[in-house]
């Protein structure tokens, strides 16, 4: 599991996750995600390279999203593969953090 970031226009930070977001995967990104949530206002979480989302992985997405929201920022999810999107929808996370498959729409939602 790897995490990399890139800055986009409009003060948006795109966070690219790559790998399986299982227990090990979430342990690997938790600290970095928390740092990002505590320092950035607009996070675009790119899930297109995440092949698996487990319960601990879900937590690694939801807790930073809530932290960002508390600080007046926003997080959006981009490009989950069907398996990952299924997990997000089954746990109603889509109602808390918007999911996009169109990058422009995701950026627009954050701006």
């Amino acid at each position, binding site marked *: 599991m790897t995490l990399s970031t890139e800055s986009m226009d409009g003060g948006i930070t795109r966070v690219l996750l790559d790998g399986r977001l299982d*227990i090990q995967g979430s342990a690997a990104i938790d600290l970095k995600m928390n740092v990002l949530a505590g320092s950035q206002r607009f996070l675009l979480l790119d899930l297109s390279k995440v092949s698996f989302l*487990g*319960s*601990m992985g*879900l*937590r690694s997405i*939801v*807790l930073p999203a*809530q932290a960002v929201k508390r600080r007046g920022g926003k997080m959006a999810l981009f490009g989950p593969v069907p*398996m990952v999107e299924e997990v997000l*929808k*089954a*746990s*109603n*996370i*889509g*109602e*808390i953090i918007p999911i996009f498959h169109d990058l422009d729409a995701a950026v627009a939602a954050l701006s």
Partner: protein
Amino acid sequence: MREMSAPVHASIEVAFSDRPPQVVSIDELPFLIGRGKESGNHLAFDDMRISRKCAAISAGSGGLLIEDRGQLNGIFVNGEPTKEKTLAHGDRIRLGIDDRCQLIFRLQPEAHSKEGAETKLRSLLGTWGGDSADELKGLRLLLEATQLLHSQLPLESVLATMLDHAIVITHADRGMLLEPDGSGVLQVKVARGKGAESLPPEKMNPSRSVLGRAIELESAVINEDLNLADLNVQTAHSVMLQLLRSAVVIPLYGAPHGQVDEWEEAPRRHLLGAVYLDSKRTATFSALDRQILDALGSQAASILDNARLVERERERQRLEQELSIAREIQQALVPQGLQDYPHMAVTGIHKPCHEVGGDYFDVFPLPDGRTAILIADVAGKGLGAALLTTMLQGALSGMTLGVDPVKVFNHLNTFLCERAAVGRYATMFFGLLDAAGTLEFVRASHPPPLLLRRGEVSELYSGGSYPVGLIEQATFKAARIQLEPEDMLLLYSDGVTEALDRDQNMFGVERLKVVLGGQQDLALGSLQAGILGAVERFVEGASQSDDITLLVVRYRRPVGDADALGGIPTPEQPV
């Protein structure tokens, strides 16, 4: 070599093939062996083959030696006729010519106590003479002893003994062992003074400049009178604090673990720490042989390396122990021997994975005659997940008092979200089945149970729901469905559908539906076994990475209120 001053832990194993085995410790020297106790024998036989005065074990220059004191036909050590011989561990002593009369000499690794182990170390330290050859021998002995004693001695005291030893060899006043902390700065871990005195590590103030130089040079550095001219003002300050001590620093490097690719550049040696020795007297260390320092360094590095390996192994064992506690908790929660009810039959199984997941199921009657059916999966694995399952069970048991399940779910959610440090949440399905076949259920992001009706499989619900304990704003609501007689419900955890084969393919819900389809008439136990078998065939021996939990329920038929309320559970009728 001096004679051993400390008691040696040795014993004699009586290994007569025609007598019960017996081990006698050698507590007194000379140790007399013979027939009867009258002659003052410490090991006394009631055996005519043994002479009254047979043999004696006493201290010799090279350890313990045995001498013939008049045994008929003599004594034999390892088959050799012997008058007097120094004994080694495992030596076989035959008394006389009868092959059955055998003794075995044993040197104990050490008594199983810290004190005993330390005494052994001290006695080894005490065997050194004054010259460097003896010192090196002493070092080797110490290392061997350390390896022997790893499992019994607290690691810190092994390291302290190592320092005491270095102090003796170098005639230093103090010795310190430093290890790098998280940010790589060397910190004093153990500090000792002369005469095995323990010093508080936090009060030590080793010269950073000398340490720095030794690490830079990757070699032992002797610093006589700490030449002030060499040092800048800042470093000189710490030297002043040392009252102008002279010092020796030996950096410790680990042996490379694993293979090194010869084409790659030689990796930088792994710094384990450093031994720092100092003295208030100048010129204390000037006569020290470089060879001795190198030997001291490599032995100390080996001891430290081994000590840390042992520490990691202990940590691994601790984790294993934690897992076994988690497993016990989980097993204790899962209901043993599910009972059937007049209106429903039920069976369930829970197969924990190695790390122990957070699966849990339960079936229990409510005062209003309904039967509660519950499956939960706590996020994560190990002791944390197991502990949260116990909490869930406690909270859910409140429902047996007639509390509304929706309220319990909402309460649990708030409770866990307010205690975010718990860091765990759960998916759950909670159903209440009454005698008329009405199933009221509350769901919390749990995979939908599969409904098998007249051979057809469907999911009990679609769409999402919040798990319990992840989102503070989450609310839960109850839904209802009417079951028909012989309807079956399969509740499962995601360990079933997410079971992976060797190519990382998931078993998936579609395969589960296929296994279940058309099995309306199968007995519940057989159905459950069939599902487990299908999963096992699918994974083909790949290791199970999550708990697997199945709960199968068959709604039998409407039952009168009286039956359901007071009804004695009956075994499932064969169909």
